[in-house]
């Protein structure tokens, strides 16, 4: 009953935001070119790294492409759902329109996390999947059910971690009002996810596994993809993702206690 209601509401969200985004058709074309160029650019950068080296941090070029593929998919998801919605939180709080969201008979986190959608991110997701399919061929990976389920589980966990990170930072807006730039900082850190974690020095590796778990976001799914990952790493990723999701949820509820609407 409840789920049904949320599904119905989400359908409406999809409808309205797609309708408004499709107003800008050339914009979507430009975004398509941007996504393709950006992928070409990062493969170009990788090829520079590999032009005189056989492997970087134990990853060969063909294997590093998998990380690119997964990064592209996750970036597409970020651009489709997280970015348009969570930058909206800042606006809601600054202009005091969060009041209207809170008054609705629907979960506020659901509303602000899924209200908008940016269809041009889909193109990136498709590009990333194409790259992954290509990687399956060149790395001669044989597909079977356990491989597919493990890959799906780890990617779902990555998405949850990524969402929690974005949501966490956007929530801090309730205190700081202008955290639009904090998401920009997060974005630049996430950029590291394009490269295998082992290619960084030890201290940075620790930083990127503990403080900003980029290791969990792209490297572990890629290892699973190659069939290299140990089971404990996958378990750890599931645990980290759950902790992140629960914490970000609680943090939101906690932050709402401090929310005083505009002019109060």
């Amino acid at each position, binding site marked *: 009953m409840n789920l049904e209601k949320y599904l119905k509401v989400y359908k409406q969200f999809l409808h309205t935001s797609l309708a408004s985004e499709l107003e800008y058709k050339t914009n979507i074309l430009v975004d398509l070119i941007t996504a393709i160029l950006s992928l070409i650019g990062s493969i170009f950068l990788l090829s520079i*790294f590999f032009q005189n080296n056989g492997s970087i941090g134990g990853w060969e070029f063909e294997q590093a492409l998998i990380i690119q593929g997964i990064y592209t998919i996750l970036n597409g998801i970020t651009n489709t759902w997280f970015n348009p919605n969570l930058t909206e939180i800042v606006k809601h709080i600054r202009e005091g329109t969060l009041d209207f969201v809170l008054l609705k008979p629907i979960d506020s986190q659901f509303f602000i996390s899924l209200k908008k959608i940016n269809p041009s991110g889909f193109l990136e997701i498709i590009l990333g999947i194409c790259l992954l399919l290509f990687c399956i061929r060149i790395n001669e990976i044989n597909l079977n059910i356990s491989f597919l389920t493990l890959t799906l589980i780890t990617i779902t966990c990555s998405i949850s971690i990524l969402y929690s990170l974005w949501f966490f930072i956007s929530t801090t807006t309730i205190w700081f009002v202008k955290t639009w730039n904090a998401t920009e900082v997060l974005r630049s850190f996430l950029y590291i996810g394009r490269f295998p974690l082992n290619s960084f020095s030890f201290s940075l590796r620790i930083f990127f596994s503990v403080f900003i778990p980029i290791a969990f976001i792209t490297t572990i799914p890629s290892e699973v993809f190659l069939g290299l990952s140990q089971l404990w790493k996958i378990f750890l990723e599931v645990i980290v993702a759950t902790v992140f999701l629960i914490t970000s949820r609680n943090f939101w509820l906690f932050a709402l206690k401090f929310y005083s609407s505009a002019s109060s």
Partner: protein
Amino acid sequence: MISNLINSKLFTLLKVQYSNMLEYRVEIALWAISGIIPFFMLNIWTNNNLNESINISDVMLSRYFLCAFFVRQFSVVWVVFSFEEDSLMGKVSPYLIQPLNPFFRYFAQHLAEQITRFPFALIIAFFFFIFNPESIWIPNLGILFLSIVSTFLSFLIQFLIQSIVACLCFWTERASSIERLLFIPTLFLSGLLAPVVSFPTYIKSWIYLTPFPYLIDFPANLLSGNETNISGGLTMQILWIFLLFPLFKKIWSEGTKKYTAMGS
């Protein structure tokens, strides 16, 4: 007499914008932090000994990336985003009535932001030197002066390109997606992520004819003391400015003719 008037106008604008920017210190600090990608790249380069193949020592490469960070800090341009917002909100109309091209306002905004950003960039450089004490160096005054000039020229080139894109707002409502498209070659070809010397020859053969290597690679090489063609680089920078400026003037006058205020 007339130049005096313009000077005082610019000076007032700068003063106003500087006090405005000082209000948002945290925001600007976060912007500064989000520019640390070159350091991560440096980490990949030195940690995997990739620089041996391009004959740059660890120390020179770390200086290069530090300078790339600095040049990027003082050549960040976002005029298209401000202009897009102003034109969508209808704020451009009152600006157009004033006897001053509104781009002066944005120009002063950028300069003021750079002044505010300067201490934060210094703090980041300070931390960089704590971790890499061997890369401390003091460039001589002449080189320092020339690299400040070339950084400013790089800023001017980017400002002009973005202003041209911003003027497209007169025709389409979302010019910022074009800017995002242009940002991709800027990111990968300017030398922010990898010095241009490391590029494969088939790219190096034509890249020096484009404006990209003069945005970051040239000033960073100049400041860090890496090998570079000083007079050639400065000439190309000035040439590009002379090419772009008339284009901007043209598109501006065409655009303002086309412009219709909200409700007309």
